[in-house]
C-alpha cells in the first residue's frame, strides 16, 4: 500500500485515512474535555492523552474485534481506538445516565466490554493482572484472542507489572504488554525513577521479547504491535513493547508542570505524530490536502455532537444508587 515505508499489517487506503481521522477525534475529544474541566462543567479529575494519539490508534488497529484491551487512567484514546462511541464517553464524563457507566464511573472508569475494552483504571498498574487473566481465559478456552495491556512508565514500577509479566511468561499467555513511556509519572521523571535506559529491557528478566518503538511513528508502532500480536496469537507467549511518547498537557487538571521545561515540551510537540502521519498520507498521494482538512473538521464536528448528546442526556435517578452491586 505504501511506497516509502514498509507496512506489515494489511491496511486499505480507507482504513489508513480512518486512522488519521481517529487520531484527530482523540485529540479534539481530550481538548474539549480539558476546556470543560477548566470551566468547571465536568467535575472530578481527568487525564488527557493529547500527544499520545498514535499509541492508542496504532496497536488497537492491528487487533481483531474479539481481542481485548485493558486501559489506564489516561484512557480516552484507548477507548476511542477500540471502537467506542464518543457520545457515550462524553455522556459518562458529564455523569449522565446514558454514559458508558451510567454516570457511576467517570473518566477513570470508562469501559466498553462489548467492544473488548475491559476498562480504564484508577489504580496505576491495576489493569496489567486483569489483562493477564483475560489472556488466561483465551488460552484455556482456546479462543485465539489476544489481550493488549496498556500502562505507563510509572506503572512499570508496581509489583503488579512484574508479577504479571512473569506469570504471562511461564504460562505462555497471549498478551501484549504495551508501556506508553511518556517520560513521567505524575511528576517523577523516568530518568530518576528507573535505572535503565529502556523499560523494554525488563522483558529479558522474564524471558520474553522486549521492543522499543517511537511513539510518534504510527507505522513503526503498527508494525511492531502487528508482529507481537501475531507472536502471541500463534502461541509464542507475551511481548513487552515500550513506546517513547509524551503527554503534552499536565498530569491532571491542576499541574503547574514544574518538573519539566517548556523547551522540552516544545521539542516533543514538534514531533507531533498526527501531523507526521497526515503528511505521509499526503506524500503517498492517498489523500489531498483538502481531503485531510475535511477529515480534521469532521473529527471536530463529531466531538461537538458528542457534547450535545451528553448535554441533552438525563442525570441518573437517585434510585439507581444501589443498582449493579451484588452484595
Amino acid at each position, binding site marked *: 500500500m505504501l511506497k516509502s515505508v514498509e507496512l506489515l499489517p494489511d491496511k486499505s487506503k480507507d482504513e489508513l485515512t480512518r486512522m488519521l481521522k481517529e487520531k484527530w477525534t482523540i485529540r479534539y475529544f481530550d481538548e474539549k474535555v480539558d476546556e470543560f474541566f477548566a470551566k468547571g462543567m465536568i467535575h*472530578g479529575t481527568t487525564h488527557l492523552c493529547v500527544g499520545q494519539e498514535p499509541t492508542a490508534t496504532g496497536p488497537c488497529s492491528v487487533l481483531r474485534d474479539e481481542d481485548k484491551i485493558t486501559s489506564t487512567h489516561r484512557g480516552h484514546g484507548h477507548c476511542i481506538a477500540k471502537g467506542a462511541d464518543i457520545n457515550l464517553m462524553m455522556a459518562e464524563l458529564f455523569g449522565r445516565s446514558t454514559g458508558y*457507566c451510567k454516570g*457511576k464511573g467517570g473518566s477513570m472508569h470508562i469501559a466498553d466490554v462489548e467492544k473488548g475494552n475491559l476498562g480504564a483504571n484508577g*489504580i496505576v498498574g491495576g489493569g496489567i493482572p486483569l489483562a493477564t487473566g483475560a489472556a488466561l481465559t483465551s488460552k484455556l478456552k482456546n479462543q485465539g484472542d489476544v489481550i493488549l495491556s496498556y500502562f505507563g512508565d510509572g506503572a512499570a514500577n508496581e509489583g503488579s507489572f512484574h508479577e504479571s509479566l512473569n506469570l504471562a511468561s511461564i504460562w505462555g499467555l497471549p498478551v501484549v504488554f504495551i508501556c506508553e513511556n511518556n517520560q513521567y509519572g505524575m511528576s517523577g521523571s523516568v530518568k530518576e*525513577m528507573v535505572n535503565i535506559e529502556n523499560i523494554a529491557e525488563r522483558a529479558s528478566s522474564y524471558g520474553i521479547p522486549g521492543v522499543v518503538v517511537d511513539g510518534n511513528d504510527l507505522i513503526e508502532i503498527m508494525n511492531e504491535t502487528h508482529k507481537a500480536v501475531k507472536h502471541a496469537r500463534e502461541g509464542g507467549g507475551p511481548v513487552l513493547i515500550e513506546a517513547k511518547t509524551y503527554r503534552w498537557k499536565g498530569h491532571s487538571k491542576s499541574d503547574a508542570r514544574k518538573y519539566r521545561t517548556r523547551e522540552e515540551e516544545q521539542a516533543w510537540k514538534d514531533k507531533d505524530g498526527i501531523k507526521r502521519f497526515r503528511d505521509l498520507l499526503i506524500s503517498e498521494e492517498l489523500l489531498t490536502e483538502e481531503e485531510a482538512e475535511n477529515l480534521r473538521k469532521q473529527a471536530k464536528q463529531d466531538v461537538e455532537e458528542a457534547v450535545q448528546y451528553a448535554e441533552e442526556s438525563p442525570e*441518573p435517578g437517585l434510585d439507581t444508587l*444501589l443498582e449493579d452491586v451484588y452484595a
Partner: protein
Amino acid sequence: MREITYVEALRECMSQEMRENENVFLMGEDIGVYGGAFGVTRGMIEEFGPERVRNTPISEAGITGSAIGSALTGMQPIVELQFSDFITIAMDQLANQAAKLRYMYGGKGNVPMVLRTPAGSGTGAAAQHSQSLEAWVAHIPGLKVVQPSTAYDAKGLLKAAIDDPNPVIFYEHKLLYKTSSDDVPEDPYSIPLGQADIKREGTDVTIVATSVMVHRALEAAEKLAEEGINVEVIDPRSIVPLDEETIVQSVIKTNRVVVVHEAVKRGGYGGEIASMITESEAFDFLDAPVKRLGASPVPVPYNPELEKAMTPQTEDLIQACRETLQRA
C-alpha cells in the same frame, strides 16, 4: 492568632519536626517539586533536600515496607500515600509486618513510622479514589489510627503520631485540606492519641462523629439549636486508641447518641463505638437505641448527586437526631 489551613498545619508540623529531629524524613510519590497530590509537602524539598524528602517511584508496597524497615532500625519515616485507597497495595507490609513486629519479637524493636494519606469522597474522584477504609486498619492490633478534623487537631495529632514509637495510620481528608483555623499555635504542640475532643457541648443528644462528619455534625447541631435542641458533638480524633470514657460520660449525660462516619456503615467503626456504648455503664442511661449513620453499601459513584446520596449529609444527621429524640 494567624489563620492557617489544614494543609499548612500538617506541613508546619512536619517541617518543625524535621528541623529538630534528623531521624524524621519523608517518602512518597510526587512529594518533591510537585508538592504532593494535594500540596501538603509544597516547598519542603527546597528546604530539606531530596535525601530527606524522597520522591519515590509508584511502588506503594515497596515504599511502605522500606519505611517500616528503616523505622525498625532507628529512623522515623513519614510516608505519604496519594490516596488512601492505595493502602490496599501496601497492606501486607502494614498488617503483617508493621503491626506485628514488636509483639512477635517479644517486645524487642519499635516501628516509629507514620503513614499519612487522604481519605473520603466528595470530589468526584469515583470508586477507586474516594474510599474511607479506616476500619480495615483499626481491626489490626498494633496499628494506631488517627483522623483529624481541624487544622488545630491535624498539627497536634501529627506531632504525637511522629513521636509515637508505634506505626500510626494518619487519615487526612480531601475536603478538609483547604479549611482553616485561627487557633493553631506556631510553636510545636502535641495532642495525645486517644483523647477525644468535645467539639460542642450539649445536653439533649450526643453525636459521635469522625473526620469530615464532625463538620456536618456541627452544622446539624447549629440548625437543631434553632429548635431548642441541644446537641453535644464528640470527635474521637483517634479511633485506635479510642477515648471510651469521654463518649460514655457524654451518653450518660444526654441519654441519646448518634454515631456517624463517612465509611460504609456495614462493618464500619461506628459499629464498634455503638457496641462499646451498649457494653458500658452508659447502657442503663440510654433512652433510645444507639443510632448509626454511614455510607450506603456501594462503591463511591462518580455522579455528584449519587455521590452525595451515598454518604451522610447534614440533613441526614438532623433527621437521625430527631428520630432518636422521638423515642420515648
